């Protein structure tokens, strides 16, 4: 519960209609897309501009009230669940595209803009914003920046981080800072832009962003490679990269995933094969054609049983859309889907896929694996039931083992979903004590009262690393 004094001050800043604290309104901001995280905030506030955000932060800082920025609540690491109560900050009134600068190839947006709306707006001008997280139709740019979201095109074009060039950020003390600029080069001081991207709302509140755009690729083509052998598909991925071809998209879907996705999308996906690679290339027509031929050849050498070209852009789009629904479609199997995004160097994809299957067998779990194989980012997803506590224990053990294996192969515990509350206990495995100490020092310097999204990234207790027995 907020003290009455705090409540009055906050209402004075944003006005009554932008302040909600009824039980109903608090309940619907008590969760995000991460299973098993729910906690009620004390109030939900929708500021109208940066100045109001600054005023809100001053009040929160003075009274030590936690504050959690939230876009559309689609994140998968418990990043926007207000685990320590306090205020959920919404950006539904700060959702404008402020400028598309065709001379500097940038777009400047407020944090509440829906990713796909912005993508469509810039594409209408022949420009291209590559990051395309699967939730792009729902997620906001602010959320993408805070989580440093990836997507299907990450392999060739990188992730959100690679496109953020300037930010307006409100610091916990109410200071408003501007980082970067519409600049291709800028080495004036620490790279605060990059520090903020992916900081999950723990260092400052982003209120405006300028993103880099690139020219729209001339053409794009899509194909599917079908396999009866999981490792053959995974080997093809590493081999394509080793042959110095960087496709736009190189997605992996195993049979259980294919089945549920087809059940939802009904677009005629092959469900009688063990695995499928969804491959796309964009660029000048002749390059696209040549690369696709080469990749098809590599897939055949690796025992692909069939290669299918998408006949039209509609067909290609249906394939991409179906792939984006994979995670949610797995919920058709069982009510709870626990998903991870362990990431390994691309050369290790086949080893990782194999390890995941062995771990699933060992713990007797239904694990569906899909993901952005081309950039080493896999999403092993366990279909389970949160009410089955015994199985949930096994799920936890299995995922601890998957994390451990990923790190052993030179990888990481999360490629694009973020640490949030969910993976905080495992962060030390990746960063070691010393790495955590550096992060803690930064956090304390910028947010001494720990009001910004507390309980995220930093764990109260780190998990003990299990030793993998092979």
């Amino acid at each position: 519960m907020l003290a009455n004094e705090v409540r009055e001050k906050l209402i004075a800043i944003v006005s009554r209609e932008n302040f909600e604290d009824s039980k109903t309104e608090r309940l619907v901001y008590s969760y995000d897309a991460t299973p098993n995280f729910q906690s009620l905030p004390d109030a939900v506030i929708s500021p109208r501009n940066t100045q109001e955000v600054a005023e809100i932060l001053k009040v929160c800082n003075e009274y030590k009230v936690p504050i959690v920025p939230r876009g559309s609540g689609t994140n998968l690491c418990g990043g926007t669940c207000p685990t320590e109560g306090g205020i959920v900050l919404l950006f539904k009134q700060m959702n404008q595209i402020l400028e598309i600068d065709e001379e500097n190839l940038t777009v400047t947006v407020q944090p509440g803009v829906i990713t796909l709306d912005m993508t469509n707006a810039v594409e209408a001008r022949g420009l291209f914003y590559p990051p395309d997280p699967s939730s792009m139709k729902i997620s906001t740019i602010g959320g993408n920046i805070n989580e440093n979201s990836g997507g299907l095109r990450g392999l060739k074009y990188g992730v959100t981080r690679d496109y953020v060039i300037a930010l307006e950020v409100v610091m916990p003390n109410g200071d408003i800072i501007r980082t970067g600029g519409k600049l291709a080069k800028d080495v004036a001081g620490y790279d605060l832009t990059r520090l903020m991207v992916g900081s999950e709302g723990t260092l400052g509140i982003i209120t405006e962003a300028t993103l880099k755009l690139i020219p729209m690729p001339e053409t794009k083509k899509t194909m599917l490679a079908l396999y009866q052998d999981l490792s053959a598909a995974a080997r093809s991925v590493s081999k394509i990269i080793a042959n110095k071809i960087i496709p736009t998209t190189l997605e992996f879907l195993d049979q259980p995933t294919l089945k549920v996705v087809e059940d939802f999308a009904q677009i005629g996906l092959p469900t009688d094969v063990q695995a499928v690679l969804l491959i796309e290339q964009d660029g000048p027509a002749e390059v696209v054609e040549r690369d696709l031929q080469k990749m098809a050849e590599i897939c055949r050498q690796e025992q692909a049983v069939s290669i299918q070209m998408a006949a039209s852009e509609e067909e290609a789009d249906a394939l991409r859309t179906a792939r984006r629904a994979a995670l949610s479609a797995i919920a058709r199997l069982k009510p709870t889907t626990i998903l991870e995004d362990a990431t390994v160097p691309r050369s290790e994809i086949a080893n990782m896929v194999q390890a995941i299957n062995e771990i699933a067998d060992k713990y007797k779990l239904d694990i569906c694996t899909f993901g952005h194989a081309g950039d080493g980012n896999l999403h092993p997803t366990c279909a389970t039931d949160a009410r089955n506590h015994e199985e949930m224990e096994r799920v936890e053990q299995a995922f601890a083992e998957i994390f451990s294996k990923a790190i052993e192969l030179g990888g990481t515990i999360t490629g694009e979903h973020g640490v949030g509350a969910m993976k905080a206990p495992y962060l030390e495995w990746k960063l070691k004590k010393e790495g955590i100490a550096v992060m803690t020092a930064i956090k304390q310097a910028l947010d001494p009262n720990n009001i910004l999204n507390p309980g995220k990234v930093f764990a109260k207790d780190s998990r003990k690393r299990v030793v993998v027995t092979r």
Partner: protein
Amino acid sequence: MTTLKEQEVIQQQFQQRMDEDELLNCMRCGFCLPTCPTYIESGFKESHSPRGRIALMKAVVDGLIEPDEDFERSLDLCLGCRACEPVCPSGVNYGHLLEEARDIINQNKKFSLPARAVRGAVFQGLFPHPERMRRTVGLLGFYQRSGLQTIARKIGFLGLLPKSLATMEKVLPQMPSVKEMKNRPKHLPALGVQTHRVAFFSGCLMDTMFLKTNDATMKLLQQAGCEVVIPPEQVCCGALHGHGGEKATAKELAKRNIQAFEDLDVDFIITNAGGCGAFLIDYDHLLKDDPQWCNRAKAFTEKIKDISEVLVAVDFHKKVKLTLPPQVVTYQDSCHLRNVMKTSSAPRVLLQAIEGVRYQEMKDADRCCGSAGIYNIVESESSMVMLDYKMTQAKATHATTIVTANPGCLLQMQLGIEREGLSAKMRGVHIVDLLLEAVQE
């Protein structure tokens, strides 16, 4: 308003009756958000979204919140258009959850005396009884023909009604006479070579207020080579009851309909109202806990088909020449026809087959027009916001004819045209009426 005591009972019933698996099946990915009209129109309020509403229902079951006034408001404002269902990768049956929740709330709260009287009269006294429906519509016809309508309009009586109701009065179709409504066919032969034997679900409103549209439907079926059986024992589908929190009556109506149709030995049971069809096709869910009826319901639902779907399946548009004077036509989806019966391309195929028609798809044709059963009467303000958006999109197509496939949507379109002052150059029409026009041209 619900008292604390009522809230307690509602909460207990939520725990006993809500399908926990279905609630858990929502994994909160948010894929439903961009399709929800109330989420969009509320300025992106999560409490007015499917994900939010499911979370609220679950929270009541879990005891995290009480089913208070805000909770009820969130459910009340839902159109029940079910646009969230086809886009849900997890396959959550939101409509079923909503129906059960509304039933629990309505059965356990004390409505004010006038509200109770109206609900009783409409849900129990009127719709389940074909004879009373005919008499009521007959009275409306008397009102229109006797000169009373002219008088009422002149003396400003309609000014006493809420604005949307007053406008609604203007757009009501010409009512048939009681005699016309009584002499309904029971059997019609196929014209030409017979390919199918079908039964026609005539519906309560459709067979009275929209009698002309029912006649057109049967004529088209005959021309398409179908022998048509119309069992006189059939009754209202029960959709209004199901959506309005009167599930018990809905189940009784369902049983009577199953009985009326099950021994007819037909290929399909045809409907021409998306709202009815969607409810009929869900009878197996409605009666799933009734061992005597669940299999019979399943057999019934497997035969339910919308008229457009059947016409396309039998190549009606290729066999019969369809012509109209040159005009631009657009189509407004009936939400339940599209989202529940999964019929969206057939009506478009038929319209595009008419010579003289330039078909222009409207932006967001799949978004609810705000009619939503009795939503436009009980939630008039919100309904008009939806309608204004719809009319903006309709106008942008430059269409002179807006086609739809459900009586509620049709009235709402006509209301929209009237509100925009466009009745001189735009009309709303049911697809079968337009098709029959095209046959006769």
